[in-house]
């Protein structure tokens, strides 16, 4: 087991001290060298000797070889100890060529921190990798039973478990005390688990959840990831303080002087190195409630962008420099969102190419109406704008495949007393990007697209101006679906129009969670006047006709859960977890597991329960052909699974019986022992 009790970064401080002189102090270890065939070792040695001679005389060099290939790391011995320091200072992060950057560390450091289970402390992690076979980060997908994992955080303990649905979850690793000092987060595809500490962030993964990387960012409070999980973004209220030039720690300090005072860091997760740091925009310095995320990413991690006053800064992640070295001026910009997928623009020369698109909106300004715009990146070309009137707020909702953008426009009446919503739909894949408008009487407070679908659900309320009794259920839940417009004119394309096909009034509901696979949606009321409740809807009620626009509140699926604070679907859309977190209140903390139709499978009431967290899964490796094959043979699989499930259930029952039998025997044997002692002492209750 890995020692978890003290995973702080205190050893980093030790690192700042001058290492003791010992037999290893003449060595450095270099990582990031080219991986080359054995035959090239001599040439490589020559090249590297030349590089490291810059620090002093090289007396020996050892390059491990495995399966006829070098492993990318090298041990270098210097004649003079002082050369070791010089090499670390001058040659660390040296670019050997475009592909190879050298990471230099003292071997004595590695030995000191790398033994006895004390994984090394360096910001520059690669140097310890020679000692570990790096674990397969997708190992959890290799579970023979195809189970999902989730995290349960209770009190100071964090555990990762295999979900066994209604049965007790099985720990994937021994639950760890103080694994994090705040929360844990999975990266978007589930490869890494991140924990939060006073000194920074740690990444864990592989079958044992071993420590993979540490990101030195004291007091980091908020983190976020790029969608392809290449980058980690962290924010700390404590600005970076770069050690003085002559400080021994300066050589390996991960940030240069340009990062002085910065609070926002973008890290490369794989290398563990910072790629770019930023100061907090001045307008956010005194904000009590931080806007997050501050960095938003294109779907493929190729670009990221930050919003500043009246401008958008777009960076290319290849070098994290500003796109075209300049900001994009957008007067009054309030919010922006990247398209969550590549967009095949009809107007583009290459119609099949996935384009990067982002949308932003600006409020009403002098001589200008409020406006929503779509911009193509990297061309910065504004490909569509819509002018809006009497706008009090806009929310940008992309459909997950970026086929549609819905802008929820909250508009005020002329008197400004009440708010009503209109929805503006941008049809990204159509020629000229037509925009459809849907005006509503209500004010929409929640909007959610069906994943990979064309339907959406809203929660709305009629704004009557002034205060209303919150105990009265006034919300309306509405299901919308597309309706093909009749072709009047053959030249005009079929534009989808959305109409409400079902609605439910007098609700307290305030949360919509669509199953990641679509069709099923959970609508919940979360901490509102004791009305905690989850309702499960099936948008294809009939189950036979996909197009049938009926909705069914799946009978069994009305579940009161008054202490409810959160809900989340598993990655497959088969199960919904609901929980009551002690972060929100102290009442009936714990979690429940439902199936998609709202059948309660499992409930645990846990004192101090903090959170439930499904481990995300990356996109499946299966091709559509593979899937077809599987579906064709489903009957065979089904038979296997039925049998496995029956056996599992049998085992569970048998285990319970055995456990109870044992408890009973233990109790009885203890009682008879006590009775014997009592008898021997000649004692009964009433005598003395």
């Amino acid at each position, binding site marked *: 087991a890995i020692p978890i009790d003290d995973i702080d970064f205190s050893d980093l401080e030790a690192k700042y001290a001058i290492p003791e002189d010992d037999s290893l102090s003449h060595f450095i270890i270099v990582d990031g060298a080219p991986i080359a065939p054995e035959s090239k070792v001599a040439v490589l040695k020559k090249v590297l000797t030349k590089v490291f001679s810059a620090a002093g005389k090289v007396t020996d060099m050892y390059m491990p070889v495995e399966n006829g290939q070098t492993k990318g790391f090298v041990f270098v011995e210097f004649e003079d100890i002082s050369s070791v320091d010089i090499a670390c200072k001058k040659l660390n992060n040296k670019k050997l060529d475009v592909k190879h950057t050298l990471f230099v560390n003292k071997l004595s450091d590695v030995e000191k921190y790398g033994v006895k289970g004390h994984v090394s402390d360096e910001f520059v992690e690669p140097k310890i990798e020679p000692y570990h076979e790096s674990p397969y980060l997708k190992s959890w*997908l*290799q579970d023979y039973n195809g189970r999902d994992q989730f995290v349960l955080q209770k009190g100071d303990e964090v555990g990762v478990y295999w979900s066994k649905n209604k049965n007790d979850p099985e720990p994937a690793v021994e639950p760890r005390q103080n694994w994090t000092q705040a929360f844990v987060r999975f990266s978007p595809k589930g490869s890494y688990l991140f924990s939060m500490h006073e000194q920074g962030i740690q990444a864990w993964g592989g079958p044992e959840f071993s420590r993979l990387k540490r990101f030195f960012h004291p007091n980091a409070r908020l983190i976020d990831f790029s969608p392809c999980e290449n980058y980690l973004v962290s924010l700390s209220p404590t600005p970076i303080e770069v050690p003085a030039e002559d400080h021994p720690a300066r050589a390996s300090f991960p940030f240069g002087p340009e990062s002085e005072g910065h609070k926002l860091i973008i890290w490369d997760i794989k290398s563990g190195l910072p790629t770019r740091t930023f100061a907090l925009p001045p307008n956010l310095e005194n904000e009590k409630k931080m806007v997050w995320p501050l960095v938003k990413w294109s779907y493929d991690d190729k670009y990221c962008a930050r919003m500043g006053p009246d401008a958008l800064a777009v960076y290319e992640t290849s070098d994290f420099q500003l796109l075209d070295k300049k900001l994009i001026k957008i007067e009054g910009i309030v919010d922006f969102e990247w398209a969550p997928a590549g967009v095949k623009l009809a107007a583009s020369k290459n119609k099949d190419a996935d384009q990067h698109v982002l949308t932003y909106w600006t409020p009403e300004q002098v001589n200008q109406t409020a406006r929503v715009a779509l911009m193509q990146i990297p061309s910065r070309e504004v490909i569509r704008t819509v002018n809006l009137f009497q706008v009090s707020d806009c929310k940008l909702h992309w459909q997950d495949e970026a086929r549609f953008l819905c802008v929820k426009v909250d508009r005020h009446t002329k008197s400004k007393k009440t708010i009503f919503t209109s929805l503006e739909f941008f049809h990204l894949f159509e020629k000229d990007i037509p925009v459809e408008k849907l005006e509503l009487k209500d004010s929409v407070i929640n909007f959610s697209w069906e994943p990979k679908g064309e339907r959406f659900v809203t929660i709305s309320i009629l704004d009557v101006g002034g205060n209303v009794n919150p105990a009265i259920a006034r919300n309306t839940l509405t299901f919308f679906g597309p309706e093909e417009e009749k072709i009047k004119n053959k030249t005009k394309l079929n534009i989808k129009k959305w109409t409400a096909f079902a609605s439910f009034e007098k609700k307290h509901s305030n949360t919509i969670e669509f199953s990641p696979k679509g069709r099923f949606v959970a609508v919940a009321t979360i901490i509102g006047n004791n009305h905690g409740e989850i309702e499960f809807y099936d948008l294809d009620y009939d189950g036979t006709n996909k197009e049938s626009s009926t909705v069914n509140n799946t*009978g069994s699926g009305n579940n009161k859960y008054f202490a409810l604070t959160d809900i989340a679907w598993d990655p497959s859309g*088969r199960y919904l977890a609901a929980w009551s977190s002690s972060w929100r209140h102290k009442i009936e903390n714990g979690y429940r597991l439902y199936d*998609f*139709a709202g059948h309660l499978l499992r409930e645990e009431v846990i004192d101090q329960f903090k959170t439930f967290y499904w481990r995300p899964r990356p996109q499946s490796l299966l091709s559509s052909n593979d899937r077809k094959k599987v579906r064709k043979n489903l009957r065979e699989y089904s038979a296997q*699974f039925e049998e496995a499930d029956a056996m599992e259930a049998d085992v569970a029952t048998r285990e319970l019986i055995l456990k109870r039998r044992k408890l009973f025997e233990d109790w009885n044997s203890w009682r008879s022992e006590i009775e014997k002692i009592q008898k021997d002492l000649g004692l009964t209750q009433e005598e003395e």
Partner: protein
Amino acid sequence: AESKEVLSRFNILEERQRKLDEARRIKEEEEIRLRQEKAIAEKRAEQERIEQEAIRRRKEKLLREQEAIKEKEKKKIAEEINAKGIIKIDVDKLEDLDADKLRLMQVEQLTKDKKDLETKLRSLAKKMDHTERAYRRYELPLLAKDAEL
């Protein structure tokens, strides 16, 4: 004297005639009165009969209407049941079924619907679960290859 006698007889005759006339007149008047009374009575009876008839008709009409409503309701319930398409009722032959019986059938129907929905959901749950698990199992060799990279 004769003239006196004649006069007297004449007077007597006259008197007698007068009395006769009087008597006849009274009788006639009496007859007229009786006839009139009879006519009124007959008219009243006729009117009563008509009224009774009207009441009877109204009642009958009401009854008919009620029957129709009942029938309609029965038909409606039956149609509702039929629309669910699980049990079939002949809408034109509802004589031996009253609304209560139909309602009971409807409740049964709803219970059955709920049960059917439940069965449907259970089998859907199984299908979804097995498909997902099958995909994941089929993916295992691909992942093993991926792990070697």
